[in-house]
């Protein structure tokens, strides 16, 4: 039950993080936000990183994108395919972002530029990384929006973000993330700002993308329900460390770490199990 099936099929993980440590210098010593984290995402796998606010899950994601605040001190290694992310020059890193590696942020409404039409924004990665003209990029954006089930995409590319509902804005962000068929999508709580029905649609869409494009997804969340719905493999983070990892089934049926047990016990369910702690 706890065997990582995809790891057995394929030789190399898409993303491999080893001993990642992120420190924020303070006047007295340093604050350690991420403490020796190691994790893998295999091709076509959806990996959840779950933990409470401040557990270091977002810092881990931002390290992979090299988008941490300037004062953060990072050590360890992060490999995407064969590339050692932490050793790349800023220019090479910029070429990677949005191309091989894309990011879906938490709040789509605030992640879209209010002064730019949807089509232009969704097509932007193609302009940046494939030298497409804006016109060509917008016509590709129509296809991308159709692929994430936005109705009447031909008309919708002309809209500004405020004309989109929350769920549609998140779809547009996902379309932007998919534009160049990345190896890895990092999604940082992409459904937190959405209501439950829309949330379910977005999760279904992410699963569908994984099945269609075999994209790996690193999914950051604090929501156990979402993890159960979506993920193949789960890492539980607490205070900057990974306290437990395993398949979704195993984590839910047989949690071993005390923190995981607490996390599971704190989720209201219709048929409460006996608290194991």
């Amino acid at each position, binding site marked *: 039950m706890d065997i990582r099936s995809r790891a057995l099929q394929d030789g190399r993980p898409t993303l491999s993080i080893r001993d990642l440590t992120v420190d924020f210098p303070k006047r007295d010593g340093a604050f350690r936000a991420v403490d020796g984290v190691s994790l893998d995402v295999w091709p076509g796998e959806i990996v959840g990183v779950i933990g409470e606010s401040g557990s270091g899950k977002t810092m881990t994601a931002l390290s992979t994108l090299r*988008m941490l605040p300037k004062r953060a001190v990072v050590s360890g290694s992060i490999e995407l395919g064969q590339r050692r992310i932490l050793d790349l020059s800023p220019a090479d890193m*910029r*070429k990677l972002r949005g191309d091989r590696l894309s*990011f879906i*942020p938490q709040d789509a409404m605030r992640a879209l*530029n209010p002064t730019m039409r949807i089509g232009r924004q969704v097509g*932007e*990665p193609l302009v940046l990384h494939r030298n497409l003209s804006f016109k060509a990029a917008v016509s590709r954006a129509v296809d991308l929006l159709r692929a994430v089930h936005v109705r009447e995409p031909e008309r919708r590319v002309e809209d500004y973000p405020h004309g989109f509902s929350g769920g549609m804005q998140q779809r547009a962000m996902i379309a932007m993330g998919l534009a160049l068929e990345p190896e890895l999508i990092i999604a940082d709580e992409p459904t937190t700002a959405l209501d439950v029905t829309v949330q379910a649609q977005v999760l279904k869409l992410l699963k569908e993308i994984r099945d269609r494009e075999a994209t790996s997804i690193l999914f950051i969340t604090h929501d156990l329900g979402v993890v159960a719905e979506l993920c193949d493999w789960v890492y539980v983070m607490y205070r900057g460390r990974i306290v437990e990892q395993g398949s979704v089934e195993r984590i839910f049926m047989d949690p071993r770490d005390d923190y995981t047990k607490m996390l599971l016990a704190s989720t209201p369910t219709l048929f409460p199990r006996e608290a194991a702690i």
Partner: protein
Amino acid sequence: MATAAGFDFRRWRLVLLGGLLVGIVLFAAIFAPWVAPYSPFDLDVAKMLQGPSAAHWLGTDELGRDVLSRAIYAARISMQVALLAVTVGLVGGTLIGMTAAYFGGLVEQALMRAMDLLFSFPAILLAVVLMASLGTSVLNAMIAIGIVFIPGFSRLARASTQAVLRQQYIEAARSIGMSDIRIIFREILPNITAPLMVEAAVAFAYAVLLESALSFLGLGAQPPDPSWGNMLSTGRGFMAQAPWLSIVPGMAMFICVLGFNLLGDGLRDVTDPHMRE
């Protein structure tokens, strides 16, 4: 939006009133050769210092020139100086402010302290000093007034940029591999134009006043070229015999400055989200 609920006259009334006054001045300035009844330079010593009459609506000056015609041509110079000065201030200040806010650190310190230095001089004094070193001409007046405006625009641009930088769409832009320059001009600039435009309208009024002040002091437009400032300066000597020599350019300035101030205030109210019901 105003368009959805029909035109909201109350919200736009200041803009309309200001726009009307500014429109009158601009019309006079652009079409001066057709609007003005006489040439501003034609001398007629037989008719000097005559009061308002059917032939000369606003009287004649000490050399028998038509005061109305001179005031209309003076609008030309004022508008030219104000337009170029505000452009210099707006472009220079915006570039400096955006650069400072975006890169932060030493760059920001160096740029903003230089701006503080410029700001610490009273505007008139700074303009006079610049004119003294550049030499007296209308072009130099434009440059000097433009430099006076740079610190104000740079502070506004910096503050607005800092607010925009906290937005998630900047992070999103970075996550798709956008370069710094592109983020500054495509993501930040369109989102800070509203406050800059309001400031530009107010600066326009101030530029008209400054130009008049410089001409009054003999540093701007040189006789016989008409300017409201040098007309006032001459009129001062004939206050008792021919008060219209001072009243006419004074009123022209009043209308012009009031127009731009109303326009600026109106635009601020219209673009300010807090003022929307």
